[in-house]
C-alpha cells in the first residue's frame, strides 16, 4: 500500500513539469508554430528562477519564502518568455524554418541553463553547493490540514503550489480555446492563417502572443522541476528529456489540454515505473524507460488510423505565413 502511495505521489511530481511544458506547447501549436525549442525554454525558465531566488536570498538578511517564490516565478516567466520571443522573431517576422529554429533554441537553452547553473554554483562556493532552501520551501509547502486525510491527502494535496497552478492553467486553456472569441480566432490562425487574415485577425500578433505566453508557461515547468523536485539546487542537464516528453504528450493528448492533465501524470508514472517494478536489471530498466515513447507512437498510429479531423494537428502547423504568397 505504502509503495503504491509513494509511486502515485512521485508520478504526479514527475508529471507537473511536463504538464506545464505540454500546456505551453499546445498554446503555441494552436497558433501554427511548432516550437521544438520548448525543452530548451524549460531550462531557461528553471535557471532564471533559481538565479532570481539565489540573488534575492543573498541580498536580504532574512529572506521571506513568499517573496522568494514571487521573485523566482517572475524571473522564470520573463526568461522563458524571452525564449519564445526569439523563436517568434525568427519564425514569424523573418520566416525562418520552424524546425531548425526550434532545435537550435533547445540546444541553446540547455547550454544557457548549464552555463549559468555552473556560474551560480561557483558563486555559491562550488559544484552542487547552490541551494535556495528558503524559496524552495515555499514551493514545496503542502496544503495545510487536508493533506492529512489518509490516502487522498498524500496523493492529491501534499504537492506544492505549482501543481495546482498547472492543473488550473490546463483547464483554463481548454476553456479559452473552446469557449472564447480570442480562442476561436487563435485556432483559426493555426488552421488557416489566410482565412483568419481575410476575417480581419492580426495573424502575426496572435502568433507572437501565443508563442511567448506558451513559452512562459513551459518555463514554469522548468521552475517547478528545479524548485519542487530538486529542492532549489542545480545539476547539469538536470531537467533531462522531460521537455521532449512534453512535446510527445501534446501529440498523445491530440491537442486537447484536458487530455494533457491525465496524460502528463500517466507519462510521469510511466517514466518512473522502472523504479517500482521489482526484479529489473539494468537492461530491462531501459526497456521500461521507453514506455512513454512507445505509448506516443501507439497514439499516433491510432489517431491516424481513425483519421478524425478533430484529432489532427492544426492544419498549418509548421508553416510560415506570408500574405502575398498564394
Amino acid at each position, binding site marked *: 500500500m505504502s509503495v503504491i502511495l509513494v509511486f502515485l505521489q512521485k508520478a504526479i511530481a514527475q508529471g507537473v513539469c511536463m504538464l506545464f511544458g505540454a500546456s505551453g506547447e499546445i498554446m503555441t501549436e494552436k497558433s501554427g508554430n511548432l516550437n521544438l525549442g520548448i525543452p530548451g525554454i524549460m531550462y531557461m525558465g528553471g535557471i532564471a528562477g533559481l538565479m532570481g531566488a539565489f540573488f534575492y536570498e543573498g541580498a536580504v538578511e532574512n529572506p521571506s519564502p513568499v517573496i522568494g517564490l514571487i521573485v523566482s516565478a517572475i524571473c522564470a516567466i520573463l526568461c522563458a518568455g524571452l525564449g519564445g520571443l526569439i523563436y517568434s522573431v525568427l519564425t514569424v517576422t523573418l520566416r525562418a524554418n520552424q524546425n531548425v529554429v526550434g532545435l537550435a533554441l533547445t540546444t541553446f537553452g540547455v547550454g544557457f541553463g548549464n552555463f549559468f547553473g555552473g556560474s551560480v554554483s561557483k558563486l555559491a562556493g562550488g559544484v552542487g553547493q547552490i541551494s535556495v532552501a528558503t524559496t524552495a520551501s515555499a514551493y514545496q509547502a503542502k496544503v495545510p490540514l487536508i493533506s492529512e486525510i489518509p490516502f487522498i491527502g498524500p496523493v492529491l494535496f501534499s504537492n506544492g503550489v505549482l501543481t495546482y497552478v498547472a492543473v488550473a492553467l490546463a483547464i483554463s486553456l481548454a476553456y479559452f480555446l473552446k*469557449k*472564447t*472569441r*480570442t480562442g*476561436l*480566432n487563435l*485556432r*483559426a490562425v493555426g*488552421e*488557416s492563417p*489566410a*482565412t*483568419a487574415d*481575410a*476575417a*480581419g*485577425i492580426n495573424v502575426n500578433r496572435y502568433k507572437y502572443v501565443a508563442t511567448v505566453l506558451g513559452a512562459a508557461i513551459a518555463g514554469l515547468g522548468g521552475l517547478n522541476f528545479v524548485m519542487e523536485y530538486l529542492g532549489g539546487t542545480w545539476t547539469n542537464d538536470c531537467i533531462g528529456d522531460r521537455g521532449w516528453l512534453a512535446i510527445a504528450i501534446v501529440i498523445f493528448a491530440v491537442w486537447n489540454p484536458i487530455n494533457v492533465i491525465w496524460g502528463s501524470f500517466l507519462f510521469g508514472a510511466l517514466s518512473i515505473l522502472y523504479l517500482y517494478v521489482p526484479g529489473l536489471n539494468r537492461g530491462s530498466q531501459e526497456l521500461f524507460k521507453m514506455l512513454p515513447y512507445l505509448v506516443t507512437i501507439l497514439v499516433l498510429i491510432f489517431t491516424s488510423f481513425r483519421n478524425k*479531423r*478533430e484529432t*489532427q494537428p492544426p*492544419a498549418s502547423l509548421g508553416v510560415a505565413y506570408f500574405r502575398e504568397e498564394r
Partner: protein
Amino acid sequence: MEQLENAIELKNVTKRFGKVIANDSVYLTVKKGEILSILGENGSGKTTLMNMLSGIYFPDEGHILVEGKEVTIQSPKDAFDLGIGMIHQHFKLVDVLTAAENIILGLPGKGALNMAQVEKDIKELTEKYGFDLNPAQKIYDMSVSQKQTVEIVKVLYRGANLLILDEPTAVLTPQEADKLFAVLRNMKNAGKSIIIITHKLQEVLALSDRVTVLRKGKYIGTVETSEATVESLTEMMVGGKVSLDIHRADPVDPECRLKIEDATCVNHEGLKILNHVSFEANSGEILGIAGIAGSGQKELLEAIAGLQHIRSGKISYYPQDGSTHTLSDMKASQIRNLGVHMSFVPEDRLGMGLVGKMDLTDNMMLRSYQEGSNPFLDRETPKNLAKEIVEKLDVVTPSISTPVGRLSGGNVQKVLVGREIASDPEVLMVAYPVRGLDINSSYTIYNLLNEQKEKGVALICVIEDLDVILELCDRILVMNNGHITGIRDARKTTKEEIGMLMTKNTEEEK
C-alpha cells in the same frame, strides 16, 4: 415603385499592372435592390474591377461612390465597413470549425462565446432569405454549395448591403444554381444589391436586371436584361473581328495522328470534366481549342498525355512509321517517348514543367536525366540544348545558369516551348502558350508553332484569345462544360459563331 438609388457608382476607374491595362476607364452603377451581371471573356477585367470594390486592389485613377458619397477603399476591412462583401471563387473557410464559428471569426464582441445565441442569430438570418444551412455543421462535412452558402451568410452577418459573387455557379450543379438564384432574388427583394460576375449568358438572362459588358479591360456598355438577347450580348462580349495578320500556311498532306473516341473523364467530386469527347488531330495542322476557362481543355490535354485517367473511350495514336498505339492504356512516360509532348503554361506560368529555382541547363535535364546508361549525369547535352534555345529563340537571360524563375514571363515560356520542340515531337500540345505575353513575344511563339506545323507536326493549342485562335489555327474545337460543342474550319467561321459555341448550353441538349 419608388425611384431606385445608386448603391455604388464607379466612374472612370482605371487599373494598370505594369504595362498591362486591366481596366481602362470603366463606368458601373448598381442600384439598390437590383442584380447586376458583369459579363466578359477571360481576361476582360471583371475580377480586377470587383477586387477594387472589395479592397484587394487600389484603383490608379477614377472615383468610387457609395450611396452618392465618394470613398476610398484601401483594404478588405474598409470594404466591409462600407457594407461591401465579396464571395470569391476560392472559399476562405476553416475546415475543422463549424459554419457558425466561421461566420463569427474575427468579429469584435464579448470575450466569452455564447454559441447557442450565435447559432440562433444565424438561423434567423438564414430563414429570412431562405438559405438551407445548419450552423453547427463542420465545414469538412459540407458540399461545395453548402460552403458557398456559409460564405454568403458570413458576408450578410457582417452587415453587407452589396454582395459581389465571382462566378458563383462555376462549382454548382444546375439544381444548386437554381437554389442560389432563388436566395439571391430574396435578397434583392429585401433591398440588397448584388453583382454577379459571370460568362454564362443563360444565367445573365435568367437572373439579372441589368448587364454591364467588359471586353479586354474596356467598358463596352450596360443594357437592360429585358432588352438583351443571347446574340446581342455575345456581340458585345466578343466584339467585331480584329485582324492580327499571323502567317498561316495551308496544311500539307494532313494525316490522322491522334484519334480520340468517346473519351469521358470524371473528377474526384464525381463531376464529368470530359463528357463523351471525340475528335481527330492531323499532322501539319494546328487544332485550336477554344472555351471558357475550366471547360475541360486542361483535362483533355492531360488525358492525351496520360496524366489524367479516362473512365471510358479510347485514345489512339498513329505515328509516321505506320504503327498504331492505344495511348489510353499507357503511362505518361511511355506516351512521351512515343513523341506525344505537352507543354502547359499554367496561370502562375512556372507551376508545371519548369522548376523556378533551377537554372536553364537543369530544367533541360528534367526531360533527359533518364537517358543513357552511365550512372553519372550527362550535363553537356542539356547545356548545349539550353544554349541553342537561348540563341534560337532570343531568350533574354544573363546566362544559362540563371534560375528560370528570374526570367520574365515571355522568356520562361520560350524556354518551356523550346524544350518540348527540341525533342522533335510528332504531336505537340501547348496550353496557353502566349498567356500574359506582350505582342512581340507572342509572335515569336506563333512563329515557333508555325515552324513545327510546316515540319509536319500535329499541333493542339489551347488559346484564350479568340482573335488569335481564328488567325493561327486551321481548325477550331470549341468546348463547354466538358462537351465539344463544335469543330469549325478556322478560315470560314466567325468570332460570333465561336463565342456562341463557347457558351452554348450543354445541359438542355440531353
